[in-house]
């Protein structure tokens, strides 16, 4: 795995210069360099924000891009994934919940059937047919 290290300004300048040459840009095209790098970085951040890993695949195997910012984006995403454990109801939702709990409950036939099946010791799982043959 590759991990970025804190780098001095001089090292960063060298790196930027190398990137400029690598992207085929002239010395006076710093703005274009910035634009290209921003677009590349935005793509990486977008992947991390959506929970995807960024992988470099080659003949020598697969390396995952690891960076503190990516770790932080993952943590934020994880928190968002678990935030639903606390449901905050607005006033309309609160009124609806009150109606539901006040109204009395007439279970629909499907629920009655499900409850009956849950109490049945002979209850069986469905037998499945897979539409794709690959495993």
């Amino acid at each position, binding site marked *: 795995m590759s991990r970025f290290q804190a780098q001095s300004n001089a090292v960063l300048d060298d790196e930027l210069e190398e990137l400029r040459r690598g992207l085929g840009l002239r010395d006076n095209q710093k703005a274009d360099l910035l634009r290209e790098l921003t677009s590349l970085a935005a793509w990486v951040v977008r992947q991390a924000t959506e929970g995807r890993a960024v992988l470099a695949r080659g003949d020598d195997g697969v390396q995952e891009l690891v960076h503190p910012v990516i770790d932080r984006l993952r943590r934020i995403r994880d928190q968002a994934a678990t935030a639903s454990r606390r449901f905050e109801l607005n006033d*309309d939702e609160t009124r*609806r919940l009150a109606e539901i709990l006040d109204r009395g409950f007439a279970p629909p036939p499907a629920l009655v059937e499900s409850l009956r099946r849950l109490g049945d010791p002979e209850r069986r799982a469905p037998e499945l047919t897979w539409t794709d043959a690959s495993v």
Partner: protein
Amino acid sequence: MASLRIEVLERKHRPLLKAFRNQAPSLVEYLHRYALRHAERDLLARTYLAIDADGDTDRIAGYFSLTTVSVERSSAHELPGLSKLPRFPIPGVLLARLAVDQSVQGQGLGRYLFEEALGLSLQLATAGPIAFRLFVTDAIDEEAVRFYEHFGLQRLSDACPARMVLDIKPLTEGSP
């Protein structure tokens, strides 16, 4: 002959996770990346796998995740006509996710998994060490809303994902 069993997600299931496919990327991603971590490291949710065994080959046909939820009001001001509502926060069990592999959809597995999740929740409500009032889910789209409405859950919001609830109390009355 194929046979299906329900197992709590553990580390030993890791090799099976990647083959799971579903039309909703978030449901696939949760199983691939977060379910095991939430179950074993963070203790945020427990995931149950429907494993279909055909000979020596195991495949994950579906899964659901359960966790606790606290239903609260976003504002503190009083609303008229809510005297019968329990005091907030109202505790519940959250069916956080339920998904069926796209290769075995339409064969009754979604219903079977829903029943499993409901059955576990009712066991907890009747014989567990805690009390709670609501069985809750966030239906991901209108198709999911219709699925849960079929089983008596009622939506609290018109938007999707739609918060949906089932009052557990009438289902447990008469239980010891």
